[in-house]
């Protein structure tokens, strides 16, 4: 394993120290492993919390700041945070208007946030609502299973509901908005290589040089199927087709994110985005906003994921609203 780390068991603690040193605009609670804005938002505004396993940076800590999250709870690498972390953050950020928990749909994340919600309500009486993102079309949905994974749409959702909270919308409105975003966005991912979990010390799966994984999540798990390595033009089809097949996105303006998995350089993402843009255009999806870069990663995995959100004027307005985080910044 080749990584810029010290003790593999200390990666999270060490990374939090670096985040604190790199971002004076953030406050890091090392004991509870929570990243806060140094300047809390005003009283009376809804607070937004997210969190999950580490290894997806900039998600979630990189999205804490004005216009987006109030706090991010950092779990161990690929392991959801614990309820006590979430309770601590929830009570700390509440400004009297309640707290929204943004949770990616994974059994562990859901159960830990669930326990946290119960505890927080009991201990402190803070009103907590939860939205669970589940946008990964690689996984077929079903009531008998854990359902779809929450992946790239989480980034877009955190930006949009963060803007709504910042402009003073109340908790019910923010929850309804979150649900609307959730219903209107889909994602699909592929991997060219596995990632290596520091504590494991070797790649999670072996992938021959001429093969790739289609339908991967963000935890280095294998995808739905393995296919021969393909050129970017075909990989773009593997991403665009299932997304459009699952949800009609030809109607309104679309917000598109082509996300890198962590080990893929920007020049490759641009090559792939050129192909994706061509396909979306051919399919009649009117792309209004775009992000190309590393936003929700899977450690050092080489690969990419596509997220398309069917928006409207209201969502575009909230998307364009000022945001000032290390991961997304504009209008400030």
């Amino acid at each position, binding site marked *: 394993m080749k990584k810029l780390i010290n003790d593999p068991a200390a990666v999270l603690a060490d990374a939090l120290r670096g985040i604190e040193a790199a971002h004076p605009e953030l406050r890091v609670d090392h004991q509870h492993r929570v990243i806060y804005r140094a300047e809390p938002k005003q009283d009376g505004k809804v607070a937004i919390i997210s969190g999950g*396993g580490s290894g997806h940076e900039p998600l979630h800590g990189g999205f804490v700041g004005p216009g987006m999250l109030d706090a991010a709870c950092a779990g*161990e690498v*690929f*392991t*959801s945070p614990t309820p006590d972390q979430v309770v601590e953050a929830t009570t700390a950020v509440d400004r009297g208007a309640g707290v929204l928990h943004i949770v990616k749909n994974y059994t562990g994340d859901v159960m830990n946030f669930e326990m946290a919600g119960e505890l927080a309500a009991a201990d402190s009486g803070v009103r907590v609502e939860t939205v669970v993102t589940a946008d990964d079309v690689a996984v077929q949905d079903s009531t008998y299973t854990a359902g779809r994974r929450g992946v790239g749409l989480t980034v877009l959702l955190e930006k949009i509901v963060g803007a709504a909270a910042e402009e003073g919308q109340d908790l019910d409105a923010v929850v309804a908005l979150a649900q609307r975003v959730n219903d209107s966005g889909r994602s699909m991912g592929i991997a060219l290589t596995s990632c290596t979990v520091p504590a*494991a010390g070797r790649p999670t799966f072996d992938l021959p040089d001429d093969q790739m994984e289609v339908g991967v999540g963000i935890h*280095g798990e294998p995808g739905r199927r393995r296919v021969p390595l393909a050129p970017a033009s075909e990989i773009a089809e593997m991403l665009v087709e299932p997304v459009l097949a699952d949800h009609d996105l030809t109607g309104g303006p679309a917000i598109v994110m082509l996300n890198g998995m962590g080990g893929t350089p920007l020049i490759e993402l641009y090559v792939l985005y050129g192909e994706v843009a061509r396909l979306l255009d051919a399919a009649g999806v009117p792309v209004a906003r775009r992000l190309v870069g590393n936003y929700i990663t899977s450690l050092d995995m080489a690969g990419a994921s596509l997220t398309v959100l069917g928006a409207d004027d209201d969502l575009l307005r909230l998307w364009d609203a000022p945001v000032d985080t290390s991961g997304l910044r504009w209008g400030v």
Partner: protein
Amino acid sequence: MADTLTLEGAIAWLGAFRDAVHEHGDHLTELDSAIGDADHGSNLVRGTDAVMAALDPPPDTVAALGKKTGMTLVTSVGGASGPLYGTFFLRAGAAAGDVTELDAAALGTVLRAGVDGIRSRGKAELGDKTMYDALGPAVDTYDAAVAAGDDIATAARAAAAAAAEGRDATEPMEARKGRASYLGERSVGHVDPGSASATMLLEALARTLAP
């Protein structure tokens, strides 16, 4: 031959579980690499170390032991296994009450309460390819053994064997819960990591109670 699980015995059980998780942590992570995210071993190593650290000074009732163990797992593990094993011990402790030892029947009630907790927390059914596929058969077997007059050690040994069978039975299953479910049929042909750690938990109990 001991026919109860004493408070010290219960603590020794947790120590034996910790040792097993340390010894086989890489194996658990390997299983989790195949159909999950390669952290089940490190999650339980972290959790059981935290538990043993939290048990000194030792609690003075089985109820307190269960609560301490459960809360420590819940607050130190995270992921799916943290709330699940945490709930197991929280419910088990609550069912035990303020006693300092459990006879064969009482242990059965306690184990059953813990496993029911995992079930209600995880909503897993038999055949979903989870730890419940090891734990469910284990408690059923334990109760049957006690009903048939076996002593606590024999019943625990039978429960551990049933857990191991349940663990092995997860291999051909297609996962419907947890991360493995994302792989669909690609999850077939791999043992579920949680069913393997759950088997270690019951084997540790059997070893602790062995005459």
